[in-house]
């Protein structure tokens, strides 16, 4: 009996998730021992075969070409694995949804008309799940190599795949002090941008030090590498319940514990709370209607 087949596809994105896969180094040999790679950006084949056991999709749906290829993937795939925040949540490129398409093309291409050979942009960036059913989702920008490999191995072997469900604080090494004390005062006096602080305590919670950390709103799995390096979490893995809006939850969780300064940061809630999740949030739905009402 022949080995299962595997295809990896990149839609609108940076291909960082494919790089995460390549980072598995020798580990890739295990995957290639289990499955035949029939189509991927690595081997240069152009069309997606009609039938593939496992298809890994990276990137968001940003053009008509992306959409065509995604539908081909779904039609071909026994198991569809969405890898990365672009595929699962729309990703950072989804921030383009904040502007009308005409403005986007104007900024990108100026007054010159773009080549007719390029695929036509969709009015909005969409997550893969907006169009097709996905069997396994692994968010992250990019996801940890082990998470990508584990998802592919599960898909190839037909095993159920469980992602961690808790928030990043579970993995973060930092200790909490004032957050654990019952008080109606905020956990910090003010909120700071990273560069404003001369010294960041390496062991205590960043929120307690007045830094906007998205850890509570973010799914674990990355090993909390950013917070280990004194950098607050930016929330690239998205919320651990996909039906939660990370931006809405940022309002709920942080408004209760951080002083008014945090709220000023949060006024750029789109950039803070929805940096990776704009296309799957409620806000575009509101904006869309606004445009259609006016035009």
């Amino acid at each position, binding site marked *: 009996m022949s080995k299962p087949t595997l295809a990896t596809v990149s839609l609108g994105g940076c291909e960082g998730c494919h790089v995460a896969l390549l980072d598995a180094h020798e580990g890739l040999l295990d995957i290639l021992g289990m499955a035949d790679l029939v189509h991927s950006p690595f081997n240069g084949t152009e069309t997606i075969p009609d039938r593939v056991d496992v298809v890994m999709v990276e990137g968001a749906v940003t053009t008509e070409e992306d959409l065509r290829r995604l539908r081909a993937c779904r039609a071909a795939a026994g198991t569809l694995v969405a890898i990365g925040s672009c595929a699962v949540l729309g990703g950072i490129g989804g921030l383009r949804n904040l502007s009308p398409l005409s403005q986007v093309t104007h900024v990108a291409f100026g007054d010159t008309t773009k080549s007719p050979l390029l695929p036509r942009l969709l009015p909005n960036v969409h997550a893969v799940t907006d169009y097709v059913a996905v069997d396994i989702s692994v968010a992250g920008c990019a996801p940890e190599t082990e998470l990508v490999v584990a998802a592919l191995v599960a898909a190839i072997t037909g095993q159920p795949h469980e992602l961690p*469900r*808790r*928030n*990043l*604080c*579970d*993995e973060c090494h930092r200790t*909490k002090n*004032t*957050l*654990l*004390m*019952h*008080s*109606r005062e905020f*956990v910090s006096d003010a909120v700071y941008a990273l560069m404003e602080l001369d010294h960041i305590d390496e062991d205590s919670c960043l929120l307690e030090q007045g830094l906007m950390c998205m*850890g*509570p*709103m973010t799914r*674990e799995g990355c090993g909390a590498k950013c917070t280990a390096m004194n950098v607050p979490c930016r929330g690239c893995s998205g*919320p*651990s*319940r996909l039906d*939660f*809006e*990370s*931006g*809405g*939850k*940022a*309002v*709920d*969780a942080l*408004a*209760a*514990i951080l002083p008014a300064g945090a*709220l000023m940061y*949060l*006024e*750029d*809630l*789109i950039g803070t709370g929805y940096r990776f999740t704009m296309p799957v*949030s*409620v*806000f575009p*739905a*509101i*904006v*869309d*209607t*606004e445009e259609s*009402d*006016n035009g």
Partner: protein
Amino acid sequence: MALGVYLSRCGGLVDAAIDVDEALANVREVAAVACVVDDVFDPIVVAAIESDIREGGVDAVVLAGNSAEHLSKSLSAGHLTRRLVSAGVNPNRIVVANLLEQVALAHPGDRIGATRKAAGIIDVAALFATMSPEVESIDLEPKRSVLVLGVTTEAMIAAQRLLQLGYEVVIADRGNGSATAASATVLKSTSAFVRGHARCKFIDGARLVDGDGWLGDYHIQIQSNEGSRRIVVGGILIARPDSAEWVAELREHFRVDVDDDGFARPLDPHNHPAETIDPGIMVVPVRVDGTAHRDKVAAADSVAMALVLRLSQTTVSHYGDTSAVDEALCGGCATCVRTCAFGACTLDENGRSHVDVRRCRGCGKCVVSCPVGARDIVSSPHDYLIEAVRSLSRVPVDVGHARVIGFLCGGCGYPAADAASEFVAQRGQGYPVTFMPLRIPCGGRLDTLYVLEAFKVGFDAVCVYRCRQGHCHNLIGNLDMDRRINLLRAVLRSRNIDDARLRIVDISPTEGERFVESVEEIYVSIASLTNGKGAAV
């Protein structure tokens, strides 16, 4: 799940304003039983519901008619609930759909609109009854002891009655209470009886520093001239409701309603002048100077009797209206710990959130602040509230009419919406029927996701009702909500969405007129707006 829906005509008031069969049309598709009755309190009706439960397998009940607030205060409703529970329905699955005050009496003259709204409210109640988890009861034998706060004539009479009935009494006074009692010039014999009684203790110079528990079993830490001591009592009598200090200390741990001066306020001054929110804590009505002694005696007797009726039961059941933790989701971010105003949340040795049920009041602030959905309140589950918003958006409205959702805090907005029916009757004109009420236990329970969802499913505006400053039963649930909503409004503005579509209304439970005005105001203010309207999806 077999759902039984019983629509009460409420003596003809409900079917005068709505088409009851039409209102039940939706729910008939999902309910095992859906019928119209004259009055749910009628013994024949109660027996019929019991029979549906025991023989028809009904395990979730919607009582459509009177308001939830009416039912929670009425003795006959308490009796009805107990009958249904003993027949086998979990108390969390007995749900009220308020058709009388918030639909029938609120919208006279719009039979079609009121009928649609009634159907929507019944659907939401059905969602609640079928989606909420069962709650387990905590049963305890009530302690036969009472803490009396403050020395007054009424306090001494009540103490005398309690001692005579075999109860232990602790009388705590901020000043020198034992001396005050000794120098009493009126009812000297009562005072002497109480002071000399073996089962009575006085604590002078007392401050209430900590407390937890519920009817039948309160643990209270009192700091006094003699140091700190912990006492265990079954009930508490506030004999100095005019002491803002006592009331403030109590409110840190228990549910007591307050008036504008910070004094203890009975929930229903007309019918039950002794009752606060917490069923084991009573307000002893203190009469103004010059009140006849017989009135003081009557008031004190009445309050002692109200407490004795509760403490004389062999078993008291507490159905945990508390917060639950899903340990598979909790990552220990501790936002709930910081948010809880009552110290009910802690992180355990594994770094997971832990709830002290004796301190938790089920306000839901921890649920809202939990970013992973590891917390939920059994009596207002997250999934139900989201589904209720969607369900209310499907109530049909006439073309060109705006639809508004109102999140009503159970402590203020919801009773105010009930009270609005009286104002509507006075002026003979209802408020816009497309205003959809949704009860939440506290303003602090309002999750930003519900507001976003409401816009997403096509509501033109969202009104949130919260208690006035200092009046929140959960101390700061209202302020917490303010911060969230004001922040969200800033976000809406930054997206060119008019923040007039999201309005905070502060209100007291009796302000029916203000409620109606607030609803009409929002309709006026959104009429001129064109941007930012959501879309039904």
